[in-house]
């Protein structure tokens, strides 16, 4: 058999191939030759063949049949064989194949070889790809070599030990004795790898960390020597002596100084020295400064040093080198939480980076800008960020839009500004806005009562321009549905009111329904908006027509809505005005007060949404009564009045259920039920009647006066419901000391989120004058978290022909009532 062709020959040949197919053919031919050569157990040319195989493997062809051959090469006595064999092992084998374990014995022998370069090969292979089993078997050998005086081997053994520790952390202890005098070495290779080893040990074990803290002075000394020593040709990089070692030492110092005052103090001087003396004209100097800054920020450094560090980062930001700007932005992002004010000083530079051409820098600058926004700089920052949003790549738009919304929510200086900002985002990046922003925006708009006319006008104008951006279209439809009357009446104060007729508005909404650009969700919004306008516009017939057309729509969602709206026109027309009334103000979740009454979106309350709620306390008065009256007309009334669990009041929740409206949730409609299904929290089901259930009274909880105004006094008395100690039963006693009766008396209550409340039916709704009698009503409160009970109550009654309404907070509950 002729000698197998040489490696270089093969490479040259393969490179002459003009097509992939040609190359594949050559490779296959050669592989076949190599395979037969392996089969013949040819020792002489094994090395050559494996080398060729490795080349072909690099090109992407399979080479697994060479694995065993690599092992044979490793076992050979020739250095050339070993070199290629170990290389082959590192490229073709890995710990997933059991075959690799066969290497263990060879490596063990080679670790004790007389030639240091063979030992080096073994250490290198073990240190790069040793599996846990191999590491366990050979850790002892590595430890031995860690103590040798041969620096060539010592440095390799140190990194091999690092690998062993990474694979088998329990073995860390055994390397401890060998670390004793590692740092007294003069050889930089050993020093460097020793520092890496120490770093690895300190990162993994707090005990080791404490143990090695005593090395801080020595490390500081070594670092000092590196800086102060003169030119050393062997380790010099652009005038800096061994930057690799400097950086590693700084990193170890960081770990050692973190949350330790003494160590931090010991390194203060050297850090200041490095920070001020390092040459910054080349990348290498900046690499050291970068590491220094990270260390200063992480340890307990004194404030002067911290300011120095932030200033270095500030200078980095102005550097021409993009890498350095990138690194500065990344570091500032890490420190913005802890040293906010210092970073603020560089805000203008950071904002300039938004205009950089480099994508990586832009992203970092955007993240940092959002972190820097606060109440003082909101206007300026938002201008820059909105400009960025206009011009940035699509990959940024979603994140930027979300960031803008969040920042606007937190720091908006005025409602008008807030709405303008939102409009700007919707019109420029509308299709990238996240889905959940639609309900949030709607809620925001609803709450800005004085801006309704302005908002709907702007949204309408935006719709005229462009109906492709779904979130914008959805918010706009909702607003037009709600505030269409303001739109056509031309009531806008904030800007020039536009002249719009009802027909034009309906044209736009119908346009949305038929447009190909509208998603099904958007169509749902549009249909509901049209329906709502039936109580606000006079062209009811047109609306009726539209609604009836969609009663046979293919889209099931639209069809269902249309059918129900049709039913509203036909059978329930008397209910329609009340049902389609203006949405009440929704209270926003307070971000700090956990006991605020919470408005939650429809989706987050699963079963509870089906139950009826009393309207939110701050609702404009008519609607509460209208709703109650409205529902009082149906058979379901008694249930409503008695079982009013005040879940976090989803104001207008009843409307949501009946119309199956998306308005608050913005998600797929829960199947609406025309009647009112009540899903009771379990405790209500235990034999509920209209009589309050009094179980054993708790040991004398004192009664309290909850409200006393204008002659109406409401007292609370307490019982504890025995089967469930988390339930308190409160009876209200309402008495009237004035000379006229209070009629149509309705008592409503709401509790914070963590409680559940059930209101049973009152004894009557007339509070007789002159304390002649009481109205009593039972409240059951479930308090599983045993939190302090607070309650908001709303009282409505007619007094001497005039309606009276009042709200009050009840905070003075005796502790025994809720503990």
């Amino acid at each position, binding site marked *: 058999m002729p000698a197998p062709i040489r490696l270089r020959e093969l490479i040259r040949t393969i490179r002459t191939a003009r097509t992939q197919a040609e190359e594949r053919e050559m490779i296959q031919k050669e592989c076949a030759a190599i395979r037969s050569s392996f089969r013949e157990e040819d020792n002489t040319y094994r090395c050559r063949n494996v080398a060729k195989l490795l080349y072909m493997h690099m090109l992407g062809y399979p080479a697994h049949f060479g694995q065993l051959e690599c092992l044979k090469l490793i076992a050979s006595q020739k250095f050339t064989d070993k070199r290629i064999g170990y290389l082959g092992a590192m490229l073709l084998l890995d710990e997933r194949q059991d075959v690799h374990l066969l290497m263990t014995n060879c490596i063990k022998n080679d670790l004790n070889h007389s030639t240091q370069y063979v030992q080096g090969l073994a250490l290198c292979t073990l240190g790069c790809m040793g599996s846990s089993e191999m590491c366990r078997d050979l850790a002892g050998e590595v430890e031995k070599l860690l103590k040798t005086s041969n620096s060539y081997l010592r440095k390799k053994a140190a990194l091999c030990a690092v690998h062993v520790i990474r694979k088998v952390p329990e073995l860390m202890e055994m390397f401890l004795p060998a670390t004793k005098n590692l740092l007294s070495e003069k050889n930089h290779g050993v020093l460097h790898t020793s520092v890496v080893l120490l770093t690895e040990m300190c990162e993994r074990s707090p005990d080791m960390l404490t143990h090695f803290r005593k090395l801080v002075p020595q490390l500081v000394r070594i670092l000092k020597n590196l800086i102060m020593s003169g030119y050393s040709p062997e380790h010099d990089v652009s005038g800096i002596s061994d930057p690799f070692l400097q950086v590693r030492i700084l990193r170890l110092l960081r770990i050692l100084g973190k949350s330790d005052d003494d160590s931090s103090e010991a390194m203060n001087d050297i850090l200041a020295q490095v920070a001020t003396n390092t040459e910054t004209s080349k990348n290498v100097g900046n690499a050291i400064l970068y590491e220094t800054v990270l260390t200063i920020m992480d340890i307990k450094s004194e404030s002067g040093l911290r300011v120095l560090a932030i200033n270095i980062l500030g200078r980095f930001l102005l550097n021409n080198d993009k890498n350095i700007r990138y690194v500065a932005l990344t570091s500032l992002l890490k420190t913005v939480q802890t040293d906010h004010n210092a970073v603020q000083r560089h805000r203008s530079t950071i904002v300039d980076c938004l205009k950089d051409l480099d994508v*990586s820098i832009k992203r970092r600058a955007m993240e940092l800008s959002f972190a820097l926004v606060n109440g003082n700089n909101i206007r300026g920052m938002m201008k820059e960020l909105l400009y960025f949003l206009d011009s940035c790549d699509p990959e940024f738009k979603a994140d930027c839009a979300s960031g803008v919304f969040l920042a606007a929510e937190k720091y908006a200086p005025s409602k008008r500004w807030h709405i303008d900002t939102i409009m700007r985002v919707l019109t420029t990046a509308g299709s990238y806005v996240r889905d959940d922003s639609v309900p949030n925006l709607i809620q925001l708009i609803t709450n800005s009562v004085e801006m309704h006319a302005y908002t709907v006008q702007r949204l309408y104008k935006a719709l005229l321009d462009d109906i492709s951006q779904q979130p914008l279209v959805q918010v706009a439809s909702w607003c037009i549905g709600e505030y269409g009357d303001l739109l056509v009446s031309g009531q806008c104060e904030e800007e020039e009111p536009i002249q719009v007729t009802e027909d034009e508005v309906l044209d736009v909404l119908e346009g949305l329904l038929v447009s190909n650009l509208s998603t099904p969700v958007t169509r749902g919004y549009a249909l509901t908006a049209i329906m709502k306008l039936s109580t606000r516009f006079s062209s009811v017939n047109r609306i009726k027509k539209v609604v009836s057309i969609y009663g046979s729509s293919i889209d099931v969602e639209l069809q269902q809505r249309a059918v129900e709206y049709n039913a509203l026109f036909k059978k329930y027309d008397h209910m329609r005005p009340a049902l389609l009334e203006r949405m009440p103000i929704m209270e926003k979740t307070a971000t700090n007060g956990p006991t605020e009454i919470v408005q939650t979106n429809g989706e987050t309350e699963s079963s509870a949404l089906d139950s009826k709620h009393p309207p939110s306390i701050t609702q404009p008065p008519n609607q509460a009564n209208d709703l109650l009256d409205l529902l009082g007309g149906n058979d379901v009334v008694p249930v409503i009045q008695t079982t009013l669990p005040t879940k976090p009041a989803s104001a207008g929740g009843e409307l949501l259920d009946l119309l199956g409206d998306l308005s608050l949730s913005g998600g797929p409609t829960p199947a609406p039920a025309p009647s009112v299904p009540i899903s009771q929290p379990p405790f209500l089901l235990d034999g509920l009647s209209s009589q309050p259930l009094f179980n054993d009274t708790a040991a004398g909880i004192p009664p309290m006066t909850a409200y006393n105004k204008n002659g109406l006094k409401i007292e609370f008395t307490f019982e504890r419901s025995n089967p469930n100690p988390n339930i308190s039963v409160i009876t209200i006693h309402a008495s009237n000391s004035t000379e006229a009766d209070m009629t149509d008396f309705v008592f409503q209550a709401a509790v914070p989120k963590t409680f559940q409340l059930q209101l049973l039916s009152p004894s009557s709704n007339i509070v007789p004058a002159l304390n002649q009698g009481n109205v009593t009503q039972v409240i059951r409160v479930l308090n599983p978290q045993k939190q302090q009970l607070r309650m908001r109550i709303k009282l409505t009654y007619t007094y001497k022909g005039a309606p009276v309404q009042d709200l009050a907070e009840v905070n003075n509950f005796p502790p025994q009532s809720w503990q």
Partner: protein
Amino acid sequence: MMRFLLLFSRQGKIRLQKWFLPLGEREKKKIIRDMTTMVLARKPRTCNFLHWKDLKIVYKRYASLYFCCGLEEEDNELLALEVLHRYVELLDKYFGNVCELDIIFNFEKAYFILDEFLMGGEVQETSKQSIAKSIEASDMLQETMEEYMSKPAF
């Protein structure tokens, strides 16, 4: 630590791949694909750093070769540029004005030099001369054997 080091040409052909973490063949191929796509798509005067999954990717172009490495969160990117540069210097010293062809035809030597410089994803030796001496000595070891056998090595 460095997780991997890749050298590839402007056409995306891989010239050297060093993995410091055990990965399956498919994963390796995927990473190579991702790296080559991402790095080759970069415009000329952009910064040398990228973000990919949880790694920092540092790359630098030397003539027709891209040197690309994947770093962990703790590692210093600017220093990684120096590490790449040092490797190129070592190759340059060894081959004398190194070019891509040298690395293609002598890939095993490129690996040997790399193995004297890095181990387990960390820098092993910071002195250029020291590494050059070790490589020289190892090469001599090879040739001595060869002479003895009076047969070409491979």
